[in-house]
């Protein structure tokens, strides 16, 4: 009978063995958290971040580069500091900082490096380097800051900062980790993937004390870093600086484009800021200051600020009217019967040329009415809708109401009202007609444009009917590659023959028209058009678009100065100075230059948000 007990005993043994196998099956086959935990334990990923690409101007001048900076790390277990006072003096920290940081480091881990001091400068590093041997357990890790050759162009360049938690979660390809630097705005953001390069990864095995124990899988998984690609921009940094200086004490934008290529020569957003403020160790302090500034210096206004085009839009009306067959250069309209007022000018023979030269409001009121009603049928509501449809289709070709595709992230569409738009506003079809929307005729009403769009329009005028999408970067990387989009001309659907009378009108507007004496360049034929952009609050914005020289134009420009009044006062002289500087390399009209550099319109500026949505994404 006792013989059978062997079986009982063995069954107990076997049962325990089965329980173990079951548990092991769970640990090794079912639950994979242990596998991940093992990798976290024993494999250290060492990230190598390459230098970010540099940025050059159109003449090959370096604008942005990188300065290496050094972080000091401490590994508490290995750290030996015999003379704390000397150490504190060397690293320029207080005894209190030393004690508290060492304490935090010990609490974090005795064997892992802890950030002791952030962002040592090159000078600090040179000073400390030799003394490092006396302090075992302290090590230096290198990274880099953006450094700027010029204080100009900061808004278009954008800045680089630690990735914010939301972007970290939303990123599509899971590239960034917490604490990584990423281009936040401007070119830095648009060309982020080219600029950043690709970071390298080294996998090293470590033991439980964090000491390296050789390559993991013989380095098969390691990735070498690839350096960031340089950006070769079309910006003329000298011109940019000059335009910047003219826009001091003002709120507004300057955009200058080379018409034949669509290359942006200058893009000023005023007020601006010193880009190095956001690249140093005090990012958060300065960022706060700039973000809270009511004049919003962080915003890049040219592609995103919303204005009405004002009288500059009359040129669009003239071109569209001729293309649609409603206007000819010989068409004459008087002031009579128009609800819009006009300035005091000669109306004896008020043809298209005269109307452009003097920016005649009634002329374009009548012209727009004719554009809408010609070759339409039905009642006035139906005819207005038919006419507006035809009109808006053609105007849209100029880039109004849509994005031009500039290589900046914060470009806004603006607004070009069409039939659908008014049906929505007036809540139904055939509920509105010309008399409701005639403000469009002189560039007011629901029209919304950005300075960039108006500069592009100036380029269209210069090219007599086509443009290449404006862009700030001519080439990326050593091969200077560029998206073919920025090489392909776009036609606006208005025949070149209609541009002659417009050019002539613009030339005369500068010489004997709406542009004052300060806006005339004695030895350059500049075609320009003033605008006065009405806005809900405060004084009108001063607007001016131009291109020069008249024949074979080299530069097209749009200048917006907020709350500076009539376009001829502030915007035109500033534009003329920039054109003179660009075409001649110098400015002879020193008195005008000095006058407008010192001119301030800030007193008129009401602290209204100039764009609907803050481009900082707040």
């Amino acid at each position, binding site marked *: 009978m*006792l*013989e059978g*007990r*062997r079986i009982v*005993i*063995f069954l107990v*043994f*076997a049962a*325990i*063995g089965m*329980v*173990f*196998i079951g*548990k*092991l*099956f769970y*640990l*090794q*086959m079912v*639950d*994979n*958290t*242990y*596998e991940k*935990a*093992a*990798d976290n*334990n*024993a*494999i250290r990923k060492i990230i190598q971040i390459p230098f970010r690409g540099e940025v050059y101007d159109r003449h090959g001048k370096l604008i942005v580069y990188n300065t290496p900076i050094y972080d000091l790390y401490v590994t508490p277990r290995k750290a030996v500091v015999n003379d704390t006072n000397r150490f504190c003096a060397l690293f320029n920290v207080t005894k209190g900082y030393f004690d508290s940081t060492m304490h935090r480091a010990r609490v974090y881990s005795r064997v892992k490096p802890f950030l002791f001091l952030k962002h040592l400068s090159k000078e600090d590093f040179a000073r400390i380097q030799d003394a490092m041997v006396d302090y075992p357990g302290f090590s230096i890790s290198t990274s880099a800051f953006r450094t700027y050759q010029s204080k100009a162009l900061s808004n278009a360049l954008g800045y680089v900062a630690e990735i914010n938690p939301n972007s970290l979660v939303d990123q599509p390809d899971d590239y960034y980790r917490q604490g990584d630097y990423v281009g936040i705005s401007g070119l830095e953001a648009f060309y982020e993937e080219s600029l950043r390069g690709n970071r390298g990864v080294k996998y090293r*095995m*470590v*033991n*439980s*004390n964090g000491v390296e*124990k*050789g390559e993991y899988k013989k380095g098969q998984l390691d990735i070498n870093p690839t350096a960031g690609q340089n950006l070769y921009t079309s910006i003329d940094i000298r011109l940019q600086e000059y335009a910047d200086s003219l826009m001091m004490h003002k709120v507004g934008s300057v955009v200058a484009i080379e018409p034949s290529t669509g290359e942006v020569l200058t893009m000023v957003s005023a007020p601006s800021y010193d880009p190095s403020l956001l690249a140093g160790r005090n990012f958060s302090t300065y960022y706060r200051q700039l973000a809270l500034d009511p004049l919003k210096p962080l915003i890049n206004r040219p592609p995103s600020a919303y204005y009405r085009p004002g009288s500059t839009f009359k040129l669009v009306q003239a071109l569209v009217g001729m293309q649609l067959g409603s206007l000819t250069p010989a068409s004459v309209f008087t002031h009579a019967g128009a609800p819009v007022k006009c300035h005091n000018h000669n109306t004896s023979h008020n043809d298209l040329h005269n109307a452009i030269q003097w920016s005649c409001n009634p002329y374009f009121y009548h012209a727009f009415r004719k554009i809408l009603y010609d070759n339409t049928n039905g009642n006035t509501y139906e005819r207005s809708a038919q006419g507006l449809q035809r009109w808006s289709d053609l105007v849209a070709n100029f880039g109004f109401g849509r994005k031009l595709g500039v290589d900046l992230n914060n470009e806004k569409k603006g607004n070009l009202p069409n039939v659908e738009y008014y049906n929505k506003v007036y809540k139904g079809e055939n509920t509105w007609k010309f008399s409701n929307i005639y403000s469009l005729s002189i560039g007011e009403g629901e029209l919304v444009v950005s300075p960039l769009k108006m500069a592009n329009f100036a380029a269209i005028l210069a090219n007599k009917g086509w443009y290449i999408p404006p862009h700030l970067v001519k080439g990326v990387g050593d091969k200077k590659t560029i998206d073919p989009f920025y090489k392909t001309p776009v036609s606006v659907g208005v025949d070149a023959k209609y541009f002659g009378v417009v050019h002539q009108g613009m030339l005369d507007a500068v010489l004997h028209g709406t542009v004052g004496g300060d806006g005339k360049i004695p030895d350059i034929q500049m075609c320009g058009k003033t605008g006065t952009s009405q806005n809900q609050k405060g004084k009108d914005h001063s607007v001016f678009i131009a291109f020069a020289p008249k024949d074979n134009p080299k530069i097209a420009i749009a200048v917006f100065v907020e709350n500076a009044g009539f376009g001829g006062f502030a915007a035109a002289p500033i534009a003329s100075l920039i054109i003179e500087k660009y075409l001649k390399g110098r400015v002879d009209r020193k008195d005008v230059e000095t006058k407008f550099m010192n001119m301030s319109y800030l007193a008129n500026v009401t602290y209204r948000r100039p764009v609907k949505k803050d481009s900082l994404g707040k």
Partner: protein
Amino acid sequence: MNSSSSNQIVKLDWLTVAMYALFVLLGWMSVYSAVYNPEAPLGIFDEAFYTGNAGKQLIWIGTSFILIMLIFALDFRFFESFALIIYVAFILLLIAVPFLGVTVNGSHSWFKYGSVTIQPAEFSKTATALLLAKYLNDPQVSLTRIKNQAIAAAIVALPMLLIIGSNETGSALVFASFIILLYREGLPGEFPGLLIGMILLFVSSLLMKPLSIFLVLVAFAGIFILILPIYERRKPSTYLRAVAAIAIIMSLSTLVDFGVNHVLKEHQRNRIKVLLDPSFDRRGLGYQVTQSKIAIGSGGFWGKGYLGGTQTKFDFVPEQSTDFIFCTIGEEFGFMGVMGVIVLFLFFLWRLLYLADQQRSRFARAYGFGVAGILFFHFLVNIGMTIGLMPIMGIPLPFFSYGGSSLWSFTILLFIFLKLDSHRSDMLSR
């Protein structure tokens, strides 16, 4: 009577010896892997190799072979004749250890002679098994009698209490495994049944709230009474008994709670708490269990390959070479490896039980069951603690774990039995 040594070799159970050799080899390979440094691998001909665990273990293995030779050189009757003397000698050593011993790895239970340290507690198991077997060899002794039961219990309890006295509770618990020997030799089934019941009660008192235990007991009592014959159900004494049983179990359960919280020492209590909640004391005891599970769990089906483990090699699991050697196998040979080891070990135990039952003398048979019981208990606790099913006790995995005392004591334990087995035809059945 006049047995030649060649005759013994023929009769030696080579299957068991082969499995022993395999376990020792696997153990050594795992120790080698645990200390293996991929950046500077040491060959076995390097002098420096013998300062490391793998080298030392090689020396222990070599000396174990000498021990085996010695055991086979002795007369097989020596072990029965000298059982009492061996037992008394080790009892004296256990008494002497607190006064003459040295502290190794925080345990004050070692003797030191030159560079060799020996833990008498390891060897006292063998001595106890021998004396117990000798006592049971007396045909007058029957384990159904209370007097004989008491003497058997005293033989086991004496070294056990001395070891508990030197704070080696883990090693002392190994003596509980003699219940297997005693059960085979006629101890009524109620005793192991009661032991298992107590363990179940202990675990459930820790895991469950008293109210849930009470409800479960009431439910069981109700079912039990329902299946009784009707006349039994009518007796009031049935209900009284049920109530009494529940009361006793509940008070025992409360006692367990009280014991864990007030009688056990802090470190013992923590070991039990870690078992129930591995997140408890993550940096200390919980760390060991968690790291052990990570090492085994990361092995997957086929493992990371020999010498390919990262957890075990880089010191993530404390006591890697000794008590947690099973992790290395789990990480490098994966589920197939650990399953192989477990199945092989069970087969080994089965072989020992089988051989024990083949013995003609009760002494050899009882000793065989003692050996199987001790080895099983180590297997149970050691593997159980590496996978988080058992509290952490300083108990090695027989033949695998690094350590001279451990390897020597298991070798002696096993080969005494194999020596006796090789003489089974010479022994008289009584």
